[in-house]
């Protein structure tokens, strides 16, 4: 049975162009920090990839700091931003984040509970701008609001947040992992100081990401070592992965507008078909990624529906975290005002280049029965 993969937001299979670019580099010696010919060759490829990625993002090459992925980039932005800002202006010690961030941002609450303020979330799934304006002020070091939410796909008003942050004198970071390749991004004109991107959500290899950060923004390093990346991030950069990332990004950006409208039709098709089932609702409203749909199933455990879809050959996701394999209620949906039951009964379906209308129809063909059985098991 041909399986239907609807979990691109967790990881999208690498596109052929990324594989080809990586295969072209192949297996060769050479550390980009070395001075000899092999090192120079590796460095040439790495810097070419940096220039390419920067272009895909509307950034300058020097803005790109390679990391191991989105999590490291987010950690670097948050901890490096707080430390860097405190060194410049000690009165700015507060971090303001949204209530719907990925754990690689949100978990800073456990680490620095007294320094973190959280912006309220509207029932639509967008951050509350009025509340943001009240929270961001002279003690704010850094603001972090994601561009597209990873569970609901809802676009966040990062432009408006940028204006508020600028007025308040705070730095702004955005986690754009779910936006890159799905929305046009222009870092230089965004008003954002630092932006997280990663390769494997848009058809690149797993193991590489980047923090794009304006050179004027003096983040502090959060680890130590050779300082390969702008003395901000240490460790040998995997050249092959960087090349794969840059190639995947070129493809995604070139196809972005066409894919967004194609996937938007699939999204509409899925939403219309799913809402025809009693007790199913769409989580999140307003401008959203055409690649992510979050559906709520009343009277179900989400993981039961997930399991039944899995058995029917469909890969979906709960979107929210697991603890020891046990599905936890979604913090994002709870922040949007969902009840505990609603936050435990949601599934995320996410699309990518391989997603077709036939995939959506396969899902819609088995979804009613899966929901019916899951409800029977929950009663």
């Amino acid at each position, binding site marked *: 049975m041909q399986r239907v993969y609807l979990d691109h937001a967790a990881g999208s299979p690498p596109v052929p162009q990324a594989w080809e670019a990586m295969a072209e580099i192949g297996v060769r010696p050479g550390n980009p920090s070395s001075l000899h010919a092999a090192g120079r060759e590796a460095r040439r490829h790495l810097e070419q990839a940096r220039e390419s990625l920067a272009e895909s993002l509307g950034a300058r090459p020097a803005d790109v700091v390679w990391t191991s992925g989105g999590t490291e980039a987010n950690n670097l932005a948050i901890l490096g931003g707080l430390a860097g800002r405190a060194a410049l202006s000690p009165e700015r010690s507060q971090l303001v984040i949204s209530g719907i961030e990925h754990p690689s941002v949100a978990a800073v609450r456990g680490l620095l509970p007294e320094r973190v303020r959280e912006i309220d979330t509207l029932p639509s799934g967008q951050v509350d701008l009025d509340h943001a304006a009240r929270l961001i002020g002279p003690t704010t070091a850094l603001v972090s609001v994601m561009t597209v939410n990873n569970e609901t796909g809802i676009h966040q008003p990062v432009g408006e947040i940028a204006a508020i942050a600028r007025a308040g004198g705070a730095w702004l970071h955005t986690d754009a992992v779910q936006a890159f390749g799905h929305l046009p991004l222009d870092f230089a004109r965004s008003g954002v100081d630092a932006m997280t991107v990663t390769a494997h959500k848009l058809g690149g290899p797993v193991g590489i990401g980047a923090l794009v950060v304006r050179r004027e923004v003096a983040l502090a390093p959060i680890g130590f070592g050779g300082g390969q990346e702008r003395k901000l991030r240490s460790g040998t950069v995997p050249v092959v992965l960087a090349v794969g990332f840059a190639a995947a990004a070129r493809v995604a950006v070139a196809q972005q507008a066409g894919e967004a409208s194609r996937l938007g039709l699939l999204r509409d098709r899925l939403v219309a078909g799913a809402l025809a089932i009693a007790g199913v609702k769409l989580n999140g409203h307003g401008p959203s990624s055409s690649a992510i749909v979050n559906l709520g199933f009343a009277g179900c455990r989400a993981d*039961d529906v997930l*399991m*039944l879809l899995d*058995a029917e050959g469909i890969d979906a996701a709960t979107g929210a975290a697991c603890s*020891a*394999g046990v599905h936890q209620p979604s913090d994002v949906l709870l922040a949007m005002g969902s009840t505990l039951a609603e936050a435990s009964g949601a599934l995320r379906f996410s699309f990518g280049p391989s997603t077709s209308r036939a995939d959506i129809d396969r899902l819609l063909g088995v979804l009613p029965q899966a929901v019916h*059985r899951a409800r*029977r098991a929950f009663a």
Partner: protein
Amino acid sequence: MSGGVDSAVAAARMVDAGHDVIGVHLALSKNPESYRSGARGCCSLEDSHDARRAADVLGIPFYVWDFSDRFAADVVDDFVTEYAAGRTPNPCLRCNEKIKFAAVLERGLALGFDAIATGHYAELRQADGQVQLWRAAEAAKDQSYVLGVLDQQQLRHSLFPLALDSAKADVRAEAAARGLYLAKKPDSHDICFIPTGDTAGFLTSRLGSSVGDIVDEQGEVVGAHSGTHQFTVGQRHGLRLGIPAADGRPRYVLSIAPATNTVTVGPKQSLAVSSIHGIRPTWTGEPRFERWRGLAQVRAHGSAMPAWISADREAVQVELDEAAHGIAPGQAVVCYDGDRVIGSATIAVTGR
């Protein structure tokens, strides 16, 4: 799939037999770290990982089902309540009765599955349109006792693929041959929610301490204790009696009376029990209300004792041919006709 070798091999055999198999691991604690016990418990994070790894090797889907609330209420709280009442429960049996072959099975059936397969050693036989529960071929591995609480409806949806195996060594060898890393994992013997093995300490943490008397059969105070839940009938060690018995022979716990906070001790012959009154009878098939010759077993690895057995809807009466020692209220008595399980009851009262 507990994360142990038996359930992994059971799953493998179900796959081989052509079934559509999904691996399920039960999360029985809200906080798995608290049950962490190396390879000894059955609900730690490592066990969950081992079960998932086995399912991946077998190429079957794997899900963790959270039954921590049901487990806390139906097994752990029941265990504590029973001890508080001076009885000696078997939590594994309770887990089979209330969780594995009840809540888990119900959820599976509702989701569209046909049966639950486990790594228990017991045999199911089809006869007269019924499913019968029999001892496993190898007496040393037989687990029919802890399954003795299952009824016909549960047995109809149960599968025990290890039934016909003669020895654990074979199952381990099979696991190794199948590339299941957990082939060398040691067996678990402890109560999974008391990984330290310190049952008295666990009960004290839940029930507190209460100093009371240890008395002999004549009512003479011979010692003191700090909580009746720290004792089980038949226990000999840890009594710390200040006054030796008149005849100098060892003394055993004869009975426990939480109402008066008293533990009664006496010589071994006073432990002798020849009649058992069991309540809450369960039947693997049709109830047997006529008086019949059978075998009674009161512990997981206890002997099968010849007896006359009779029952009504409320109770089971067992008259043992030969008196036995250390039979405690709260234990289950499982009744066999030869090697076939007929039913079970919870021991309420014992008599000499």
